C-alpha cells in the first residue's frame, strides 16, 4: 500500500545547540539588580521550538514533575501560536514565567530529552527558555488566561503559607469553585519567591502579577498572620472545611563552628531577606533595613541559595566574594546556569574547603574564616565521593562578612504550636499519605514542609496533587480517587 496521505514534511531546526539567550554583560550586571538573562524574542523562541523532533517516547513529559505536555506546547510555538502554547502549559503549571526561570531543567525535562547527547556536542531542547518566553509573552501582551471557575461549591478552604505550594493549591481550589483564604506570616506573599530568590533572577513583578490574578479569581490573602500564633491550627481547621499547609523550609541551618555568632555572620535567609524582601540594597535612601557596607565576603555552600547570596553580595560592590564549598564541582547542587553566571560575575570559587572556625577581628565582628582543605575519598551512601581533610592544610580567608548557606529545615512556627500533627521525628517534616493528607483528616500539606528544602516545581506539583485530593475530600469525604478515576499521587523527592 502506498501512503499518499503522507504528512507534510516537518520543519525542524537542525542546530545542535540551543538558540543562545541574550544576557546583560557580566561587568554591567554586577552594578545593578536587574535581570540577567534577557529572554527570547518571538523569533528566537520559534527557532528553538523547531529544534524539537517530536520523538515518540516523549521522555521530557515524564521528566517534568508536573507532567507538562512539552512536545505539544513546543509544537504550538513552532506554529507561532503563542497563546495556544501558553494555554497548553497552564493546564499543568500556572506559573510558567517563574518556572522557566528557576526550574533545574538540566535535571528534569532537558536531562532526559532525546536530543541531549553531550558526547556528540548536542544540546537538549531549550524547554525552560521557551517556557519562560511564553510566561513573559503573556505579561507583555497582557494576556490573562483566566481559568474557568466552576460554580461555587459553598466549601471553604484555608491555605497556610503563600509559597509556590500554597499558591498552586489556592489557585487550583479556587478554580474548582471553593472559597479560598491564604494566610501568610510575612507582609508579602510568595514565600521564597519573594524573600529569597533575588530580583536579578526572577523579577518580583512577575509574582505580583500572578497573585493579582488570583485575587481576581476571588482568592483572599491575609498577610501578617502566623498561624499557630495568631490563631491555633485547631481553630483554623474548625473554621474551614479543609486546610492546606505549605509553610516551607524556612529554618536556616548553621555550621556549629566557633565564631558563628560574631557580627557579620548571616544565614543566607537573613542576608537575602534584608536585601530582597526588605530592599536593603536601597538603604538608607530607598529602604530602612540596613545592610552593612561589605568589603570582603565569604558565602558557604553551593546550592541555589548560595549562588543567590554570592551574586547578591557581588551587586553590593565589595572587593571580593568567595564561595567556599567542602565538596567538589560535581556535587554542587545549584542549577548549572546559576553556577555559570556566578563564575562569569567573578565570584571566587574555593571548592574542597571546609570551614572550621570564624575568627574574631578583636571587636566582636568577623575577621576571617578558617578552612580545612579537603580531597575526595571513597563514595559514601549517596554515591557522592566523600570529602576528607588533607592533614595540615589550613587556609584563612580574610573577610568581614560570612553568609552561611548550607540548607534549611522545616519551618517550626506552626508545628511548635500543634504537637499532635504527625511529623517525621528526625527531620521535623510533616508526614502525609499518598493523597497529601496529614494525620488530621481535613488537613493536607505539601511543598518544602513535607519534603525538606527542594524545588519550586516540586512544591507546585505537591500543591496540585493536594488540591485534587482536597477537592475530592470536600465533595465526597474521601481524598482518594474513586476506582474508575485516575489520580496523581504526590511527586516524590527521590
Amino acid at each position, binding site marked *: 500500500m502506498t501512503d499518499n496521505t503522507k504528512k507534510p514534511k516537518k520543519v525542524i531546526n537542525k542546530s545542535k545547540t540551543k538558540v543562545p539567550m541574550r544576557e546583560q554583560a557580566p561587568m554591567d550586571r554586577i552594578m545593578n539588580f536587574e535581570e540577567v538573562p534577557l529572554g527570547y524574542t518571538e523569533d528566537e523562541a520559534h527557532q528553538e521550538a523547531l529544534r524539537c523532533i517530536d520523538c515518540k517516547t516523549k521522555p521530557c513529559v515524564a521528566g517534568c514533575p508536573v507532567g507538562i505536555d512539552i512536545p505539544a506546547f513546543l509544537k504550538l510555538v513552532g506554529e507561532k501560536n503563542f497563546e495556544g502554547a501558553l494555554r497548553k502549559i497552564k493546564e499543568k503549571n500556572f506559573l510558567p514565567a517563574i518556572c522557566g526561570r528557576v526550574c533545574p531543567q538540566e535535571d528534569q525535562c532537558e536531562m532526559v530529552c532525546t536530543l541531549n547527547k553531550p558526547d556528540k556536542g548536542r544540546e537538549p531542547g531549550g524547554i525552560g527558555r521557551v517556557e519562560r518566553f511564553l510566561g513573559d509573552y503573556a505579561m507583555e501582551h497582557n494576556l490573562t488566561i483566566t481559568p474557568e471557575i466552576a460554580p461555587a461549591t459553598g466549601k471553604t478552604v484555608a491555605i497556610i503559607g503563600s509559597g509556590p505550594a500554597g499558591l498552586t493549591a489556592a489557585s487550583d481550589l479556587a478554580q474548582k469553585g471553593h472559597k479560598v483564604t491564604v494566610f501568610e*506570616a*510575612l*507582609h508579602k506573599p510568595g514565600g521564597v519567591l519573594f*524573600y529569597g530568590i533575588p530580583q536579578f533572577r526572577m523579577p518580583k513583578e512577575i509574582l505580583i502579577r500572578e497573585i493579582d490574578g488570583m485575587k481576581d479569581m476571588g482568592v483572599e490573602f491575609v*498577610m*501578617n*498572620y*502566623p498561624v499557630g*500564633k*495568631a*490563631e491555633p491550627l485547631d481553630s483554623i481547621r474548625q473554621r474551614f472545611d479543609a486546610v492546606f499547609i505549605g509553610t516551607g523550609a*524556612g*529554618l*536556616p541551618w*548553621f555550621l556549629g563552628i566557633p565564631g*558563628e*555568632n560574631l*557580627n*557579620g555572620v*548571616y*544565614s543566607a*535567609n*537573613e542576608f537575602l*531577606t*534584608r536585601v530582597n524582601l*526588605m*530592599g536593603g540594597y*536601597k*538603604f*538608607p*535612601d*530607598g*529602604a*530602612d*533595613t*540596613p545592610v*552593612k557596607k561589605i568589603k570582603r565576603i565569604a558565602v558557604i555552600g553551593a546550592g541555589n541559595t548560595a549562588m543567590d547570596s554570592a551574586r547578591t553580595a557581588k551587586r553590593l560592590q565589595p572587593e571580593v566574594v568567595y564561595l567556599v564549598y567542602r565538596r567538589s564541582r560535581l556535587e554542587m547542587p545549584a542549577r548549572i546556569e546559576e553556577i555559570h553566571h556566578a563564575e562569569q560575575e567573578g565570584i571566587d570559587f574555593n571548592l574542597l574547603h571546609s570551614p572550621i572556625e570564624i575568627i574574631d577581628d578583636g571587636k*566582636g*565582628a568577623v575577621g576571617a574564616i578558617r578552612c580545612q582543605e579537603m580531597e575526595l575519598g571513597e563514595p559514601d551512601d549517596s554515591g557522592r565521593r566523600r570529602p576528607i581533610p588533607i592533614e595540615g592544610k589550613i587556609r584563612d580567608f580574610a573577610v568581614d562578612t560570612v553568609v552561611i548557606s548550607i540548607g534549611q529545615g522545616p*519551618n*517550626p*512556627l506552626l508545628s*511548635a504550636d500543634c504537637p499532635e500533627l504527625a511529623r517525621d521525628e528526625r527531620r521535623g517534616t510533616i508526614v502525609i499519605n499518598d493523597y497529601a493528607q496529614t494525620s488530621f483528616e481535613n488537613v493536607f500539606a505539601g511543598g518544602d514542609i513535607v519534603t525538606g528544602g527542594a524545588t519550586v516545581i516540586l512544591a507546585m506539583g505537591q500543591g496540585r496533587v493536594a488540591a485534587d485530593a482536597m477537592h475530592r475530600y470536600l465533595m465526597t469525604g474521601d481524598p482518594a480517587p474513586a476506582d474508575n478515576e485516575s489520580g496523581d499521587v504526590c511527586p516524590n523527592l527521590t
Partner: protein
Amino acid sequence: MGNKIIYTKELAPKTKLFEIEADHIAKRGRAGQFIILRVCDEGERIPLTIANRNPDKGTITLVFQEVGKTTEMLGQLAVGDEILDLAGPLGKATEIPTGKTVVCVGGGIGNAVVWPQVQALKEAGNKVIAILGARTKELLILEEEIMSLADMTITTTDDGSYGRKGMVTHALEDLIEEGEKVDEVITIGPVVMMKFVCKATEPHGIPTQASLNPIMVDGTGMCGACRVTVGGKTRFACVEGPEFDGHAVDFDELITRLAYYQPEERASADNYHRCRMEEAADNLGNHG
C-alpha cells in the same frame, strides 16, 4: 488591614503609648509576647512587646521610645491612622508561676514589659514586687499603672530625682538582704542592667528570667538574626524566647550584636531628619 490607632499618650519625652485595634492579637496574646510592625513600604520590621491587651475591645497597647527612624515615624502617627503591617502575637509567653513571690525588675522602656507581667502574675495568685528604674524622674513610665497592681513597688532613679537614688540592682540586693523570700525574678530593660540583675541573683540561687531584645528581621524563626547564646547553645530569641534563663545568657555577646548596626541606624535617622527638615522648609517656602 485594620490596625487602627485609637488612643495615644506621651508617657515621657520621646516615649509614647498607642492603643491599636488588633482583635486576634488582643485575644490570643499573652504576657511576654511581642508583635512585629512596619510603618511604610520599604520600612523596617521592628519588634515591640505587647504592653497591654483588651480582648473585649479587641485592642492592644504598645509602648515605644523614639530612638530611630522607624519608631520616629511611628510616633508621627495619630489617632485614626493605621499601621501598615502588624503581625503577632510572636514569641513564647512568660512562664507564670502560681503562689510564689516574684520580683519584676524593669528599667527604662522595659517597664512597659513589666506591666503585663505584673498583671499576669497577680492574676495567677503570686505576691509581686516591682522594682522600676529610670535615669531620671521624667523618664519614668507606667509607675502608677504598675503600682496599682503590684503588692509593693520600689522606684529608683540614677540621679535621685525621684524615689531611691541608684540602680535597680541595689534595690534588689537590699530586698534580698532584708530577708524577703524571693522565689523568682523576671527582668527586662537595658542589657547591662539585666546582666547585673542576673549577677545579683545568681549567688542566692534565685531563678531569673531575662527578656532579651536582640535585633530581629522576620520574627518567625526564618532568618536567625535574633540568635543569642544561652548555656553555650545558639537559640533564636523570636521563637524560643524572648525570655531565657538569665544565669545562662551570654549578655556580652548580646551587647556586641546589638551595637552592630548602630552607625547605619544613626545614618538612617539623620537622613530622615534631614528629609523632614527639607520638607518643613519646603512647606514654609510654599506658604511664604
